[in-house]
């Protein structure tokens, strides 16, 4: 498998002189397979524009273009690239868009297609040339054909968000963003008037078991692409509950799960290239990551899994 990062930033596109090296576009991943023409795109952040342009330039004869797009969730930074994805305006394009349904139970077609209305964008959905099929996705395992197996797992984010585990020819790529470690949301302070001993204990075991399930989900991955928006100090200083992970925790979790390579992504929009370089020096070291190869994902970076 070959993976290319077209966008690695979190929350909002962050162009500027401070983000030239790691890139300012929000998440979009391109996944290609040896011995197969299949194209899987994970997320439709602003990085998707350049991916679309590249697909057009690689297709001078205007042949058929096919892609399966797996959205991790429908927060704006993960879907805002779709209207600027050039193949969507080509009648020879076939897209299958998968994603989790929201808690309001609105179908994906409505949530994503809703962007194509005059109040947000000058092109309406029924004016799009491409053939688009929407598939509401839930947690589970799916056979995508051609030997590609996909497992979807719910993560811990303010909106239902899916992580994907893709297995092909014995190799495994996992995504786990946007997410943060599960934690006990109930009061554990016995002096708190709302404290309930049973609830506190139930919350503790639920969080512990869910974190265990998460590690089982990415266990043995050849490449794990994980949310690492914050350092532990930042996370504990008001960012808990925002749905993004502290780097220290994910390095430990990935090591426990025998992950071979860890790509940290969803960089904070305020994080400069210089700061990411400093974080790399600290967390990607052998001292911190052991035998696991850890790196901060960079826009345009390609990783070969074979």
């Amino acid at each position, binding site marked *: 498998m070959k993976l290319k990062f077209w966008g690695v930033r979190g929350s909002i596109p962050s162009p500027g002189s401070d983000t030239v090296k790691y890139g300012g576009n929000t998440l979009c991943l391109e996944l290609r397979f040896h011995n197969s023409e299949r194209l899987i795109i994970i997320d439709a952040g602003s990085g998707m524009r350049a991916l679309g342009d590249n697909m057009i330039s690689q297709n001078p004869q205007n042949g058929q273009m096919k892609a399966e797009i797996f959205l991790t969730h429908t927060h704006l930074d993960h879907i805002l690239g779709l209207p600027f994805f050039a193949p969507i305006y080509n009648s020879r394009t076939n897209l299958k868009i998968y994603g989790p349904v929201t808690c309001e139970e609105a179908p994906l077609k409505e949530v994503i297609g809703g962007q194509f209305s005059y109040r947000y964008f000058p092109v309406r959905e029924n004016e799009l040339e491409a053939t688009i099929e929407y598939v509401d996705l839930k947690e589970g395992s799916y056979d995508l054909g051609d030997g590609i197996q996909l497992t979807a797992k*719910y993560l811990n984010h303010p909106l239902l968000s899916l992580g994907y585990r893709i297995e092909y020819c014995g190799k495994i790529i996992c995504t786990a963003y946007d997410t943060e470690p599960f934690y006990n*949301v*109930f009061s554990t302070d016995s002096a708190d008037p709302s404290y309930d001993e049973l*609830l506190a204990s139930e*919350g503790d075991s639920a969080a512990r078991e869910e974190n265990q399930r998460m590690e089982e989900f990415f266990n043995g991955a050849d490449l794990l692409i994980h949310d690492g928006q914050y350092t532990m100090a930042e996370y504990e200083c008001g960012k808990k509950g925002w749905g993004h992970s502290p780097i220290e925790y994910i390095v430990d979790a990935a090591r426990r799960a025998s992950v071979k390579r860890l790509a940290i992504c969803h960089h904070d929009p305020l994080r400069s290239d210089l700061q990411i370089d400093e974080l790399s020096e600290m967390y990607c070291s052998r001292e911190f990551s052991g035998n696991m190869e850890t790196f901060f994902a960079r826009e345009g970076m390609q990783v070969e899994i074979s």
Partner: protein
Amino acid sequence: MSTTVIKVLETCNDPRASANDLQRIISLDPILTARVLKLINSAYYSLGVPITSLARAIVMLGVNTVKNLALSFAILENLKSNGSFSVFSSEEFWTHSLCVGVIAKSLAAVKGNTPQGLEAFFVAGLLHDLGKIPLNRQLPEEYHRAWETAGKNQDTLRHSEIKFLGIDHCTVGCLIAKKWRLGTTLVETLSHHHNPDDSSEVDRDFVFIVSLANQFANHLSIGSAGDCVIDNQLIEYLNGKIGVEWTILHELGETVLNEIEKAKIFLEIAQKG
């Protein structure tokens, strides 16, 4: 608006409301509890054991998702609820459901179940009569006749439901629990709380406890879900099966009244505030 709806709206609209507040307010409402469990189990079903604990559902779904769900649901329910509960008042139904939940949880504790497992008993008690809600709402006239006739003939409401509607609340509850993927234990409880011997062997002890809790709630006349027959024989039988004495049941009676009183005070704070 009912006090529960007001409190749900207040709690969910308050950004400072804690997860404890949220759990408390939802756990007092059988319909809302069922909705949250439906959401989590529809989403999580494919990967294993169904979730029957509200606390676990809140940890997994997150406080915001549950708040949004509760908010939209509370508003929706309020719109739908005009003149709904034709046979029993929603207050009486709520009190009965809560009472069965509290007794089931207390009995399970007496019988040495682990603290982590107790909430499943509470939830099952709270939801055991879920099947009555759509019957009562969709077929109000027929349901009223079934209830009235059961009262006149001193028959169980369940028998009368079958006579007048061709289906009883246990079957309807079973269908809902299956459709919402609430897991086999809740399916068994909702299906067999009136005939616990017919439940599957693996869940039978669990169903015995909820069944006894239901009968004892009727015996205590705390709340009502429409049944006027108090089946002391079944209570005796279940006491023997579970291994509890009448004295223990009567001791629980006080706990139940305290719990319901606390819940009412909790809800009234919202109305007064």
